[in-house]
């Protein structure tokens, strides 16, 4: 891509292009107080342990999040393949899996309780460990300092802690897979009493304890990260980088971090109360229970209370997952359409609108849980309003493509795929958000199809777009584009082949979290369709190894990157190809313009980086810019 347009010869864009080996130029300057002295030289003598493991460099931490996230994604995908085998071939023998699953295979059949453990862990892993930590953790860390023009996060130490708390959380969750009674199996939403009573399901014993402990560490990690992101965006922007000049990625990460800070503590409280109910005999969520031949003494608690607490996090959580993807996709679409993002302010406005609304829609997960129907009407109203800002985003993305000059990089393909999946999955939200229609659709495969498209696959596509796009900045090398294309088309077709038919199954009323539907006449049709879905899902999953291969191969053998391979305008591309700790060897560039000056009339190149002063672009300045330049 780099040869598409002549390299711009603005002095400002070149000034910081130190390259890999160039000597850093120590200077004293304004904006980056605090961090300057510590970071703007390379620690050649730094011990590898501090450089690669307990690193405080946001870029290194981002890579740690990414690699850990990839590990979890492979595991989460493997679990889904296992339960898709069960759903596709309910009568089939699974004897061959005994070496891996041990006593969870009995007489050639998958244990139904283990099936529930599989779906529970798949959901937990994908939502929290991959799409929250792996996506937001990677790119918030990587891009915030680079794009706002900061040496590092506000607190590098807290940032390091954020990763290591996540790591501890990961180790605990991973170890829960191997215990005798199995991992948590009450669904990723861990509704009590099922999650509170080991008598109800073995997974609610030690497995659930580990789940809760792991999640506590996870929440701490999220909060440490979130506070850091918000502080960095507010305080460490470079000279000239006003909030209205921030790339949409940063706006998305910023709002995501705020959502996380406000909602994760509520999950923490829910988890804590559940721990009390499980271990200390309290009755927050338990009442009138007779189980395993015994009447429990708990009285007065409400399982519905837990659902309120859970979804007060759980709903913002899906926006925590999708908003970073939205931000990155906006960036990639604009860069590769060589066009400014359409309606920059409307994009920010809709992100803010979605963020605010995300806090007042949680009970749409609970229309038929026995909640007061009046609340149902209120939450239906608030939920369906979200369609408006979401629609604005989609239309703006479409308008960004319109009359563009599109380069189909792998990142661009995944961004276009993101928009397509977001539309497909988002629209069915209009059905599910309608309390009346949710009576039938609640907990069916329609819901599964909906959220896998709109926040599962979409967020994954955002993640892929991000990795393909910023890989050169991360590793100084390019990923193979051709493999990227194949990866994209296979995944894109695969996702639709899996989740479109899943809607049919859902409309027919098939309940989710069913080990088999064979016991019901009403759910007996669609056996073929389930087979089809399973095959498509397993192939699409296997296709991801193209990406894994491409990723690791390219780290070591990829084509070397140029400084600004996508001819992009944002600040991260003004750093050296492989920026050291401190990001810019010299002074941090100042910012003079918004991040979307692509194909500006009057300019002889089709992009003008943010750090190019208006005074150097007299020919392309808009009237108000010209005023500022004068």
């Amino acid at each position: 891509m780099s040869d598409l347009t002549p390299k711009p010869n603005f002095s400002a864009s070149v000034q910081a292009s130190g390259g890999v080996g160039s000597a850093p130029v120590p200077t004293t300057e304004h904006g980056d107080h605090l961090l300057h002295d510590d970071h703007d030289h390379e620690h050649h003598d730094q011990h590898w342990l501090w450089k690669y493991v307990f690193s405080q460099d946001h870029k290194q931490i981002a890579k740690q999040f990414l690699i850990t996230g990839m590990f979890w994604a492979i595991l989460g995908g493997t679990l889904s393949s296992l339960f898709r085998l069960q759903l596709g071939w309910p009568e089939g023998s699974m004897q061959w899996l005994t070496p891996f699953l041990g006593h969870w295979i009995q007489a050639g059949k998958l244990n139904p309780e283990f099936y529930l453990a599989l779906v529970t862990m798949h959901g937990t892993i994908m939502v929290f460990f991959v799409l929250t930590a792996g996506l937001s953790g990677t790119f918030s860390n990587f891009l915030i300092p680079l794009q706002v023009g900061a040496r590092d996060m506000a607190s590098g130490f807290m940032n390091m802690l954020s990763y290591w708390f996540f790591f501890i959380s990961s180790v605990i969750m991973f170890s829960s897979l191997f215990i005798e009674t199995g991992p948590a199996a009450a669904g990723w939403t861990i509704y009590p009493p099922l999650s509170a009573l080991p008598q109800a399901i073995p997974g609610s014993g030690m497995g659930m304890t580990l789940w809760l402990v792991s999640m506590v560490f996870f929440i701490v990690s999220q909060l440490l990260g979130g506070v850091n992101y918000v502080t960095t965006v507010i305080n460490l922007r470079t000279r000239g980088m006003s909030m209205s000049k921030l790339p949409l990625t940063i706006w998305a990460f910023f709002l995501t971090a705020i959502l996380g800070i406000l909602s994760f503590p509520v999950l923490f409280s829910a988890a804590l109360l559940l721990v009390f109910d499980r271990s200390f005999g309290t009755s927050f969520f338990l009442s009138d229970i007779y189980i395993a031949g015994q009447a429990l003494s708990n009285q007065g608690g409400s399982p519905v209370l837990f659902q309120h607490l859970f979804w007060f996090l759980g709903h913002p959580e899906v926006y925590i997952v999708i908003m970073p993807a939205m931000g990155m996709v906006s960036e990639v679409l604009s860069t590769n359409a060589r066009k400014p993002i359409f309606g920059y302010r409307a994009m920010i406005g809709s992100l803010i609108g979605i963020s605010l609304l995300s806090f007042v829609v949680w009970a749409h997960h609970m229309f038929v849980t026995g909640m007061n129907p009046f609340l149902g009407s209120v939450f239906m109203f608030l939920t369906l309003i979200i369609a408006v800002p979401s629609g604005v985003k989609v239309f703006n993305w479409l308008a960004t493509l319109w009359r563009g000059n599109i380069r189909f990089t792998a990142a661009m393909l995944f961004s276009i795929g993101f928009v397509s999946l977001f539309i497909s999955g988002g629209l069915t939200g209009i059905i599910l958000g309608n309390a009346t229609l949710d009576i039938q659709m609640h907990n069916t495969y329609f819901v599964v199809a909906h959220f896998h498209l709109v926040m599962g696959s979409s967020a994954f596509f955002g993640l892929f777009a991000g990795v393909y796009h910023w890989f050169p900045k991360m590793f100084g090398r390019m990923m193979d584009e051709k493999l990227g294309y194949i990866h994209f088309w296979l995944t894109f077709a695969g996702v639709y082949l899996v989740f479109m038919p899943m809607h049919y199954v859902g409309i027919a009323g098939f309940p989710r979290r069913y080990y088999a539907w064979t016991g019901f006449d009403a759910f007996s049709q669609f056996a073929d369709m389930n087979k089809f879905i399973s095959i498509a899902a397993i192939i699409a999953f296997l296709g991801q190894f193209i990406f894994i291969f491409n990723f690791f191969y390219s780290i070591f053998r990829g084509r070397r990157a140029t400084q600004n391979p996508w001819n992009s305008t944002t600040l991260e591309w003004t750093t050296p190809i492989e920026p050291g700790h401190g990001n810019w060897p010299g002074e941090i560039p100042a910012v003079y313009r918004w991040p979307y000056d692509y194909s500006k009339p009057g300019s002889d190149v089709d992009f003008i980086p943010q750090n190019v002063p208006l005074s150097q672009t007299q020919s392309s300045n808009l009237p108000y810019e010209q005023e500022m330049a004068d």
Partner: protein
Amino acid sequence: MTALTILLVLVLLLVVFGLLFRLQILTSIFSGTFTRDIGMSNSVNAILMLVFLVFGGAWFAYSFVENFNKMNPPIASIHGHQMERMFWTTMAVIGVAFAITQTLLFVYSYKYQHKEGRRAYFFAHNNKIEVIWTVIPAIVMAALIFAGWKAWTRITGPAPKNSVVVEVMGKQFNWLVRYPGRDMKLGVINYRMIDAVNEWGFDLSDKSALDDFTTNEIHVPKGVPVLIKIRSRDVLHAVYMPHFRVQMYAVPGMPTRFWFTPTISTDEMRAKLGNPKFNYELACNQVCGGSHFAMKATVIVDEPDDYQNWYAAQQSFSAKNPEVMAALKQKAKTLVNPVVAQPEVEAAPMPLAASN
């Protein structure tokens, strides 16, 4: 066989993609236009966008039509038909939005693919357009919200006075069913009195519990409002009856309810479907443990007369299980903290008030 076919198609697809992208490098090298950057792979991807739209759209349309009957199991309640209309109306609305936006997305991607020498149109914002595509969806949403809200308040509103009452209680892993008996009052139950025989925990010191009877199947009369009272005695369950468009959680410690009016009797439905084995089913739809997937009850919709005969022929729990009555008096005394279920206030006076 299907598996093999799909596998074959996907492998072929993979090979085709691989060849396409390889081929275009070769051809571009021969034609001398090879650059590492924007070459033919860009137009291959652009064309694939269009191909995806056409073939993907065609596949979706085909499979949707093909499976339409399967995804529409028969409906047998009054509000179910209303919901069905609302569902497909909403589907039509979102279908239009889906078709327009997806078409624009892929067509724009194809049409505005990179061309040497062309420059993208610098079009940063236009408030008028933003307002239009904010307001139009807002209006459509308002209409959908209004329709949904009206139906929701009607469906979840209080059950008619003449409703037939049946209570179900979820437990791992089956459904218990009881009827109020001749007095039309459900008796008091107490979870501390539950044992292997007295699964409901009937408190037989309550007079209205004496004539309550339990059954294995749920019988309801056709054409009469039915109020299902719902309890759970261990973990969360959910009463889900897809044919009646009924769903409500069973929550331990918090009784819930749902009312509906069945419109087609089991016999009629069997004749209609040509399936003599057809039965309405009640499925558990909130994960409740290992055998969640097998937690089912059968629902039988009778003609009103049959229902009344059936109702009259049932024997009460207390009569069937005299030992519970005998054991009760002692047992009840030892209870430190008896819990009284909500008294039944609005049970109908007759099993079939409406049909008479």
